[in-house]
């Protein structure tokens, strides 16, 4: 155990050290409704996260699993985030990839966000990403076209959107619809 840790600490690049620090922080002081950590502790660059649907929204009560893939130069580059359960949301691609501005470096501009202030920078962290995702669940940005159908439904047929969301919530909880 001790030798393992020493070895890791010596070999670890700054990315690994920062990921370990963030993990420690998240474990000791977890934000409510969010759990995140490496899938296995041999590889600190692939995390899983469980996100609870925000209260008072159509995602309330759901527990949504997601995975985070960190680049070797983290925190200089943002991680990628992908839900591993079925999702229906204007800012989530059909394959689960999350499209929010905090996950994009200024310069790469898939959705035409304007302000660089909400983009990725080393100030951000896993915790902030996950909190942003929670607020994204609560308030979709229907201008981003990650899932055009969902965006359209969110705008035009809110009850149907909420019905689908509730169905997904039940699915994540393993309740038959």
């Amino acid at each position, binding site marked *: 155990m001790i030798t393992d840790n020493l070895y890791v600490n010596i070999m670890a*690049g700054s990315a*690994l*050290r920062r990921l370990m620090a963030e993990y420690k922080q998240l*474990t000791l002081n977890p934000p409510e409704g969010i759990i995140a950590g490496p899938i296995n502790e041999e590889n600190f660059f692939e995390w899983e996260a469980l996100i609870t649907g925000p209260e008072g929204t159509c995602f309330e*009560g759901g527990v949504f699993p997601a995975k985070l893939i960190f680049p070797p130069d983290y925190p200089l580059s943002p991680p990628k985030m992908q839900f591993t359960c079925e999702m229906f949301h204007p800012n989530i691609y059909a394959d689960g990839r999350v499209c929010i501005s905090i996950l994009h470096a200024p310069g790469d501009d898939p959705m035409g966000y*304007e302000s660089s*202030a909400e983009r990725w920078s080393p100030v951000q962290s896993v915790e902030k990403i996950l909190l942003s995702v929670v607020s994204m669940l609560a308030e979709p*940005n229907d201008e981003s076209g990650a899932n055009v159908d969902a965006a359209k439904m969110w705008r035009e047929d809110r009850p149907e959107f909420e019905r689908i969301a509730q169905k997904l919530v039940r699915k994540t*909880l393993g*309740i038959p619809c």
Partner: protein
Amino acid sequence: MRAAGITLISIALTCAVIGNAYYQKKQFYPSVVYITKSNPSMAFFFQVIYIQGLILVFMINTFLRKIFFGNLRAAELEHLVEKAWYAVTETCLAFTVFRDDFSPKFIALFTLLLFLKSFHWLAEDRVDYMERSPVITWLFHLRVGSLLSLLFGANLTMIQYAYDSTLAKGASVQLVFGFEYAILLTVVLNITIKYVLHTIDLQSENPWDNKPVFLLYTELIIGLLKVILYVTFVMIMVRIYTLPLFAFRPMYYTMRNFKKAFHDIVMSRRAIRNMNTLYPDATPEELAAADNVCIICREEMVSASKKLPCNHIFHTACLRSWFQRQQTCPTCRLNILRPTTNTPGTRPQNQPEAGQPAPQPAQAPGANQHGQGFQIPSFWANWQAPGAAQQPQGQNNAPNVPLPPFQPLTPGGVPLFAPPFPPMVPLPPVPTPPPNLTTLSEEELRAMEGNMRQAVEARIETLQRVQLLLDAANAMMNQYQTAAATANIPVPTSIPTTTSTAETSQTKVPDLSVIKETASTSAGESPASSSNEPTPSTSRADNETRDEQEMLRRRRLQKFSSQGTAE
């Protein structure tokens, strides 16, 4: 497994064809003659042979992959499939130009090319993974080393072959093959350099600061080589055949990457030079005054650290690697490449504060007017409403569209823009720091007052900024109105993404324990939940999930406390 099944079937089919012929002719030689003479059975025979050949190649490919890579990670497999898709479609496009050359040999060459390509992609992924993997074994070095030399040799051989064949028989599809292998050669070169750099980095105990610089230059040089190759190829193709449409997508990406690499190098060099020459080292007092943690690596700043013009302090090494990507302050996004000295006349004294503690000379507006050139105060920046984020951008991009001014702010007839929303909500004015006129010299005052082009430009810019803030405020008020109108449900709190951790942890997020409680209380109720009152927590599965989470968390906590004691 499936490949083995197909092999068995194809072997069985071959036997059936030969057996059938033998049964009819009773002798081996005549039966072979029979097969070759009867057309349908001959065609069938050859097809079976091809399928067998393909399967053989597939099996060799799988075998080699096992040898050189072992088990693939999920991400590697994903990349492989994605890239293979592009490669196949593009090559198919390419071969529409060379319809006449279509033959079995051609298919064989194409398959070989595809497999070699897939090995390049995998090798690249593996070498990139070196940085992330804590432990690199000797087996890894052995595999990568032999694989790279093998690929290098294969590419050279194939280029040689294509060259000879083109010389001997004139231009043919071999041109495309030769070109593809030349590109692959640059890829191998790139991977090899990366591999060497990573290996050197792993040997030393301290992180190697200069590695990113070498990587950047490698990218630049390889990019240049690729661009040259593509341009040559397109020129040759245009002269001999037609415009090679299939090469355009990769060519576009190559050129874009090259341009980006070039831009990155120029910018990062400039930023790092600024850092080394202009910015002071942080003093121990300053370090003590700040919370002493470098926001980039989250470690304490005991070693060399630098203070940026915005008073934010970072490790010199961290800052250097950040500047290789972006030339802004990581905390406040101050663009550090903006000219730090301005003539007084161009600097509007009453511009709105850009969300930082003190006005800095570098914050004065340069020529760069949108994007990072101007930062709205953090209050607006944090606000993530959909509409307004787009709105100011459009206006900023087209500042010359003359629309009727909605607020005649200046007599000069400055083109202003109509507000995007008809109802104008009155807002308190954005507080602006009063110009400190007493400290200005005669000349500066005159310059400020002056009607020179610079002064007018600065004024217009300031006005545009005021305009932008008003628009944002307006959109936000609208947002609130609609929210208030539709608020039967409690309005969900938006969580600012750039506030401090302390704030975010206080921000309202769904309370796990509350949900848990409702789950346990409602567990006794009927499981048939109505649609308008969703009670998804009527199942035990819910509780189980949470228990699992608790377990996971507890386990991790234990792990950490044990680590802490170990250290």
